[in-house]
């Protein structure tokens, strides 16, 4: 007999078993839906945390403010020196006029400030350099370097280095994010493992109800794969159905929490993530579901196979 006929028969019995054991299938699908939903949520929140951390890191910088009478040469000297440092990723120059324009833009709704500004004869703002480091931890070194330059302010024209004003805030933020990342990974692992075990156990119970059936198949002379196949097919169906449910459920879920997540996390929108990373989510949720269902069934039937 051809292998193809065997595969056809096994697949057919897998489908029939899935339908006829309706209640058992339903509970397995429900549990696996929850598991896969947890997995998807872990994936999305991990991405959210990571992207938020990146965004925050990108916002950290050291600004060097120059006195209003600092010369272009002085500023250029400092800029060159900074660019020579290995820790420095970029240095952006902001001249006095741009600084004023930016100041006006930022306070455009505050008429009193704008009026006060208009009453001044000359631009009160100095030029500045925005320095970005390659790593958050390297700001300290850059700030120290600039501090040393500041002490010679007569020759360098540096008025102020703002890093020390932000230092504690930056340090705290970095440590909060890194801790929450670590806790998040640990929590995700525990939660993920727990739900996988619950799914596995549910499928094992489903197959436990069929243990006599497996015994009969053994006695009639069915080969291992002939007994195991339909259960593995049913397991794959559990995974497929619950995977689909999760992917569909994520749509209204992320749509609903999208604006809230953006308000809370700054730039990360869970709906945008769902929409633009659908292929990845599809692969993880469906692949995970199918693998979990098939493997659970495979292992559970093995217990009752006697040949």
């Amino acid at each position, binding site marked *: 007999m051809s292998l193809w006929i065997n595969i056809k028969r096994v697949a057919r019995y897998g489908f029939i078993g899935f339908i006829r054991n309706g209640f058992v299938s339903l509970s397995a699908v429900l549990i696996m839906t929850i598991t896969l939903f947890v997995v998807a949520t872990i994936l999305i929140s991990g991405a959210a945390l990571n992207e938020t951390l990146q965004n925050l890191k990108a916002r950290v910088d050291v600004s060097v403010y120059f006195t209003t009478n600092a010369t272009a040469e002085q500023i250029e000297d400092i800029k060159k020196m900074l660019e020579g440092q290995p820790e420095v990723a970029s240095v952006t120059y902001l001249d006095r006029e741009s600084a004023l324009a930016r100041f006006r833009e930022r306070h455009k709704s505050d008429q009193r400030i704008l009026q006060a500004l208009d009453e001044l004869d000359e631009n009160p703002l100095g030029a500045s350099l925005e320095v970005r480091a390659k790593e958050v931890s390297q700001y300290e070194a850059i700030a120290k370097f600039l501090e040393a330059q500041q002490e010679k302010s007569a020759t360098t024209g540096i008025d102020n280095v703002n890093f020390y004003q932000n230092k504690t805030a930056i340090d705290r933020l970095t440590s909060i994010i890194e801790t929450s990342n670590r806790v998040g990974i640990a929590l995700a692992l525990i939660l993920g493992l727990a739900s996988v075990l619950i799914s596995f156990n549910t499928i094992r119970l489903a197959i436990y109800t069929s243990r006599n*059936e497996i015994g009969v198949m053994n*006695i009639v*002379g*069915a*080969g291992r794969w*002939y007994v195991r196949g339909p259960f593995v097919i049913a397991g794959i169906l559990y995974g497929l159905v619950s995977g689909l449910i999760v992917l569909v459920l994520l749509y209204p879920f992320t749509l609903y929490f999208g604006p809230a997540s953006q308000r809370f996390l700054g730039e990360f929108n869970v709906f945008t993530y769902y929409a633009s990373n659908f292929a990845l989510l599809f692969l993880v949720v469906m692949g995970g579901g199918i693998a979990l269902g098939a493997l659970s069934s495979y292992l559970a039937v093995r217990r009752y196979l006697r*040949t």
Partner: protein
Amino acid sequence: MIYYDKVTKIYEDGAHAVEDITLGIDAGEFVSIVGHSGAGKTTLLKMLFAEVRPTEGSIFFGSRDIGSLSNQELLRMRRNIGTIFQDFRLIPTKTVYENIAFALEVAGKSDEDIKADVPHVLELVGLFHKIWNFPNQLSGGEQQRVAIARAIVNQPDVLIADEPTGNLDPINAHDVVEILKKINDLGTTVLLATHNKSIVDTVKRRVVTMDQGSIIRDDKSGKYVL
């Protein structure tokens, strides 16, 4: 055809189920194995299709030692032995048709053969009209007849019946035994384990009597004597 050579079975809990039994059965025989519960009848039969392995001794099926068979050979041998049990052991999620078809599929029969053989064997046991029912929609006697149909559909050389009438009323029990006799008349060797005296007495064939794991009588045309 079947030969038990000094077979002993001691279970893991230390129970001596079968003790040093030597027994030969020819092709085409109808052998009733009788004895009280716990005499070792079921163990003796289970060892024939290798659901239980003997602690000592060998069992030959044809010329082959069952203990030396590979997995594949064992499966093939099982397809050549039909089995019926007290609790019917039908697959509850399959219809009558599918239960019987399953045994044929396992044996590698084509879809055409299966479509032809299943109704045929159901007619033989008088259950053609229940072909699309599920086991839980059948009475005990009907379920046992489905089990018999499944056991014989592959035309096995041997039919093993372990207390097939244990859960049946006398009329159904009588019907089952009549079917077994008919199968035997068609050439299949039948091994029937039972403690039902009236059944054994109506069969009037060879009777092997067991007690505490040993054979105490072996009568060519016997009655139930204990």
